[in-house]
């Protein structure tokens, strides 16, 4: 049984259908890619799964339990974590304190324990001096901090929202290694929303392709990339 499952998930904003009839599964240890042209509904998709949006119809099931109406903070505590595309690290907390949040609230640790665990995690991710202000760290460190923050919740499922954006080749390689490691060693099911195809190709076991809010293809990268409908979605109709 998959850990996270959605059935016929639909989200409407007034007249606009952002996500339509989306069904998918994600299990621990898997790395799932989510791709699609701009406006395909990828961000809405993550928001639905993480509880920032509640769906207009359809269901979200986690470990057999229906969590469709569960609010975001409960889902974080349950084991579904995510990063944000627009970096939102909290400015009045330093790097370490940002990472501590998930430990404090989702895992309900005490301050001292949370600090120790966060320090361990930051060291494992090579985050350097964690007493720096969030404005002082590099782009790669910011991404790692975002991931560390999400991991602090102790998730079984983790969604990364365009986490590779803005990184150079070496940094991307670094992060790919990190994500693979996370999925394997912590047995986390990772959903990777990306625009960078090489990342998807290297990293993922399986890919979902969204277009205009609908799932138009699903399968390993090599298959999906040859799918004529997918090609059409990216390049536009018959030229």
């Amino acid at each position, binding site marked *: 049984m998959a850990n996270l499952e959605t059935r016929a998930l639909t989200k409407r904003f007034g007249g606009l259908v952002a996500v339509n009839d989306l069904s998918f599964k994600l299990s621990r240890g898997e790395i799932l890619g989510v791709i699609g042209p701009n406006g395909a509904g990828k961000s809405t998709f993550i928001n639905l799964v993480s509880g920032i949006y509640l769906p207009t119809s359809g269901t979200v099931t986690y470990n057999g339990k229906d969590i469709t109406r569960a609010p975001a*903070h409960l889902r974080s505590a349950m084991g579904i974590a995510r990063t944000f595309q627009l970096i939102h690290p909290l400015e009045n907390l330093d790097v370490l304190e940002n990472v501590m949040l998930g430990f404090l609230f989702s895992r309900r640790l005490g301050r001292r324990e949370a600090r120790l665990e966060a320090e361990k995690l930051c060291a494992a991710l090579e985050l*350097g001096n964690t007493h720096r202000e969030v404005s002082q760290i590099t782009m790669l460190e910011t991404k790692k901090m975002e991931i560390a923050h999400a991991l602090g919740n102790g998730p079984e499922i983790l969604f990364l929202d365009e986490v590779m954006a803005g990184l150079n080749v070496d940094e991307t390689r670094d992060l790919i290694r990190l994500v693979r490691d996370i999925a394997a060693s912590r047995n986390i099911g990772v959903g990777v929303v990306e625009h960078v195809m090489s990342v998807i190709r290297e990293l993922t076991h399986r890919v979902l392709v969204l277009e205009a809010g609908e799932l138009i293809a699903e399968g390993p990268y090599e298959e999906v990339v040859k799918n004529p409908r997918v090609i059409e979605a990216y390049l536009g109709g018959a030229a």
Partner: protein
Amino acid sequence: MNRLLSFALPLGCLALVVALPLFKDLAPAIAGPYPLSLARSIFIYMALAISWDMLFRSGQVSFGIAGFFGLGIYGSALSVLRLGMSPWLSILAAGLFAALVALLIGFVVLRLRAIYFSITTLALAEIFRIVLHNGGSFTGGPEGLFIPKIISSDNATLYWLALSGVVVALAASSWFERSKIRFALTAIRNNELQAKSSGIGIFKYLLVAFVVTSFVQGIVGGIQLQSYGSSSPDSAFDANYTLLPLAMALLGGVYSTVGPVIGAVLLGFAAETLKLRIPYGHLVVYGIIIVLVILFMPDGLYGLWRKRARARRSARIDARMAAKGASRG
């Protein structure tokens, strides 16, 4: 030596503040009845300023301090007059009463935050005032209430009573700073989405903050009533009790316990001098202070100091790590 100073200095100041009334014969200029009553007034505003900041840490601006302060005044008066409570117990009752009202209102209003919450709090003092004004003989109507006797006629006792209000506020603020609540409020203030993704139940924490701060404000109101013996709707819900604490917290430095204390001391003395010089409209200074602080010094005095301290600390760690790296070769 440095550590001894940073420990001994505040402790010494604290001891002086607590022991002040004992010097009334030795140094009447700073410990006589007038300075003590000025100090009491400063303590009242200080406690309110601290409580305002506690909620502000969550990103919510409350303009309703006067509302819960006034509820505390009436809560204490009514407990004594209608329930026959002892004066000391009535102060506690005042706090609980204010907290209960905050719970009920917050339950509704904290679902939509920011402007909606702030405007509602702006209206609160006025609403409470009208309700108590029209409460007939039960609430004393427009003339207000008189309690048979104030809690003590000894200046020193009254001074320590007011000081205990500050202690309550300091204890609550300290609790907020040392526990998880600090992280929750800071996260909520900075970015609610990120807070939610950390497992923080925003509504829950905001409600806690609102209720606790209103409790403090109610306690202070109770202390005020028991010190002066009477109040009326107009004086209990006077807008000064919102304006001054707000200005004090802003000037002294928001998002801290120390900041409002500093602000209260500075502006408390200023208020006293201004009131004597400018009979009408001396409050304009507070409006101007608020504008200037928000524009040019939003972190307040203490905030500026704290930023520099953090930068220094981080630089020290950088240096230490670099040295470690260098020694490893």
